């Protein structure tokens, strides 16, 4: 009983029931404007039948050549709407946009190495660890760069794991 639609500017006025959650960041206004202006098809909002915001995903398309891909910048679901498969649906919509609108080779995301819950979730969604980025989170914690190949990457080259971890400066972020 979920409606998923494109994220619009006015959602910023009413996403508090999601963003007050401890782990969800409320960014500066230019951050959201940049995403809305650049990748409108990769931003989605989920609403329940009462019009109440449930969760959203913010993504972008970036890279060059065979590195052209969709990237998940933020995925968040309000606590009362968790464990109903909403994150899966939102990810699917971003993947569809990355494939059919932006014609990317893969979708990637970064997750804290310690966040086993999230890592397991992304594994279920078909993501595998491509590489470890050392000290990605303010130098305090490593990130796992997880990827899922899109149909354009026929040979699935984009997801062959790197043998060695990389530093953020070498990660072509």
């Amino acid at each position, binding site marked *: 009983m*979920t409606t998923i639609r494109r994220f619009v500017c006015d959602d910023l006025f009413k996403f508090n029931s999601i963003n007050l959650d401890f782990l969800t960041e409320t960014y500066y206004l230019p951050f959201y404007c940049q995403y809305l202006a650049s990748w409108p098809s990769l931003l989605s909002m989920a609403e329940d039948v009462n019009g109440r915001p449930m969760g959203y995903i913010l993504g972008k398309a970036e890279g060059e050549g065979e590195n052209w891909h969709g990237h998940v910048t933020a995925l968040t679901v309000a606590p009362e709407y968790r464990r109903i498969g909403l994150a899966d649906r939102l990810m699917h919509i971003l993947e569809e946009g990355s494939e059919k609108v932006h014609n990317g080779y893969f979708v990637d995301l970064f997750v804290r190495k310690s966040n086993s819950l999230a890592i397991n979730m992304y594994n279920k969604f078909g993501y595998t660890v491509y590489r470890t980025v050392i000290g990605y989170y303010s130098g305090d914690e490593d990130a796992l760069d997880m990827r899922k190949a899109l149909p354009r990457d026929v040979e699935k080259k984009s997801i062959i794991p790197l043998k060695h971890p990389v530093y953020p400066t070498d990660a072509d972020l």
Partner: protein
Amino acid sequence: MNNKLSGIYQALESHNHKGALKLCNAILAKKKNDPLVMVLKAITLQKLNEIPEAIKTADQVAFSGQTHETILSNLNYFYKSVDQIEKMCKVYEISYKANPKDESLAKGTFLSYVKVRDFKQQQQVAIDLNKNFPKPLHNLWYLMTLLSMINKDPTNKLLVGLSQKMSEKLAAENKFTNSEELFMYETVLDIQGKVEEHLQLIKGKLGDLYTVPTERLKVLGALYTQLGHHADAAEAYKEIITKYEPDEWSCYMGYFDSIWAINNSPSYQDLSSLIKSIQSETSTGRPLRGPYIAEIEVLYRMITVTKQDSFYEQFKATIFEYFKRFGTKPIVYYDLKKYLSLVEKDTKEQKSAFLEEIFKLVSTDNTKPDRISQLCAYYKIQRSIGLQSNLSETEARAIIDVILQEYNTNKTLFPIQQSSERLPGDDLLLIAYFLLADLANANADRKLLCLVEAAAILEYGFASSPKNFQFNLYLMQIYNRLGAFQKAFHHFEVLNIKNIQWDTLGHLMMDHITRNPALFSETYKSFEKSFKFYVENDSTPDFVAECYKKGSFSKILEMQKFQDKVAKSHQKAVYSTERQMLAFLVFRHKNLTTPQKTQLDTVLPSDHDADITVEQFSFNQDLGVADTFHPSTYTTPAITTFGSTSLFLNQNEAGIDTQTLTNTLQYRRILLKLLVQVSNTATTLDQHTATQTLLKESIDKLSGKNQIDDLLFAFTLDIFTLYINILDLIKNTNGKDNIPELFKNIINRFNQVIKSIQDSFVYSNSTFVNPNSTRQITATLIEPLTWLSYLLSEINTLMPSKKAKKKEEHHVQLRNEYEALIQVVVDGCASIQLLITGKQLDQQLSITTDDQSTAKYYQFIGLDTAKPLSALLNTNNVVKSIQDDTRQCLSEISNYLTTMKSHFNQIK
């Protein structure tokens, strides 16, 4: 970049503005008028708040045909920071004219007009761009410019026709390459109501630009519906839910709407078999809710639209099935909320029977995690269908006791695994809170006790599940009601609101902290944080330009509308005015050496512009952030801000009273305007009188709702009327006869204010300070006395002293009355101080006294160990918080009154 330049950038980045200026001047001494350094100097001067000099510096180089990207971007930054972004149009125009073959300058010119929404110029430059640099993107920019102009003036048929032709041309030339571009053609058709043409467009080759199939189908479904082709619409929606997105609720609804539009009495069997087939096809993996709730929706429509009541039992049975399947998910309540409204209309017996069936589905095994989630849903349904309404205290407490026991058991057996998670039973505590709030609202004598207990329950929840922000939201609300504003503010800080949340959630706390002297410094900080966000909005036009550059045409008008909503935010307007009002108050008390005039000189005309209407504001406050499970008939009793008109939000369940909010803002702005006028010696008497008339008119709009507010209004009006009349007397010897009467009135009003404070200072029949007292003293005494002291000090400088040789008889009389008034005020302040000091002691003593009310109170809050509640809750901490907060606030108030007395004595 050379070392000297990077030195300037580094100095600016590290906020070493004086150092940056020194470096700029050093370079300019050798390279006079170097354009980049001049712009950096302008930026530096702006940071040093030397705005006129900064603008002059930038202007010297801005219009001499700059082409360097760094200079242009720095100029853009500078003019934006001084609110003169329109100058960038001229900068680019001149540069482009000097370099007519430079496409980037032509584009820059176009985008500079985009940023200031000068559509006419935007159109001209777009034509120019297409002529000199023909590219598909420039065609699209031209079309979007036309759409922007039509959006501003939808009646302009010429432009509409032009946009149609342009769209057709671009389509014929295959210039539309994606759905963002096609959006413009669709909009052109929509503006003209050409739905059939729009449909054909999407069905045709251009529709392929919707590369995500469901997006195209949704557009088709909506267009078919608009045209009344309901069968086709149904097919489009059906294709989505059967082929692509079996959980997409908007499409289920679109499908059902279409089916019912075709036939008001559709076949239940047909619909049911479709849904069952979707259920069957999606049965593997995680069960989807959509196909199951669709089953309930069909029955709901058979009852409410087709009017076949015979489906009601099946409807309820399907709800039970749904509960059985999804009852452990917190979302089950939100899924069922709409359908419970039917059950809510049943008799109490029927509702009880319904709830009993639900209860049978709740696991009886409290050692399994499912039970607590199901219980949460059960109690939320109970509340939602009205079975928690009008309960006796015994009935309500029986529920609360069970709830707390269940919560505690669950918490012990299943502690939080991840520190970021909530406990699954948290909503039970919210139910307990709602029940106690209901009791507090129903019984004035028990109000304080129930609220304290409710606060203790929420604190228990917060301690058990610290990342559940719902506890913070409700604790803020309840502590504000209890007068523990600092404690409320603590929970506000826990929320850690940022950026746009200052606009949408700031109202939760700002009203209260601006009335609490112990929190004035926090109020200042909050104002500063909120203004940082509003400044961010100055960059939004840059992103509108970005939309043009990136071809995100669907976002252009949307983003501009958003920009306007933030710029016109009511909350922003309130912050602006209240920041100045608070500054005036604090300056008067805390820093007597700073002339009041200095602060009032910084007040912008927009802060006191009283010519306002509801329509010019955007009310962006987020009212849906706190969870509620109330029945449809529930109305939150208005939270009265006892003793002063609410500055920020009058809220009830249905929304906000925007008219009252606007009237209140107008009243406050007029007060500020009066103060600014007093500070300006050039203000004429007529101007004072005109503003005073406005004050009276604004008071007329607000009065009659609250006795204490009315007293405040009358007192305030007296204060300014007295000032204006005395001014008239001194300058023109007019109004001699009125003055004694005015002095008498103001003394009477002041005494009434004092008496009102004394009468309501303690909570009924107790030794506890009334939760609203501190707020009331600030609003009705401290603030108006601050204005009075300022006005009297101004009068004092104009009025001949007693010893003056040249004075009239009326001057002597005036001086006597003036001094008498001051004496009354000083005595009044002293009496309130005495009251405060005495009650501060009482508050402390009351913990150990055995007077009847206190004994009753403490028995209630924890000493009765027979209650399981008392074992779990620490009501003593809540009481201590209230006492500490009150004591600290009273102490601050007393300090203010001391300063006030001294100030009045100085101007005697």
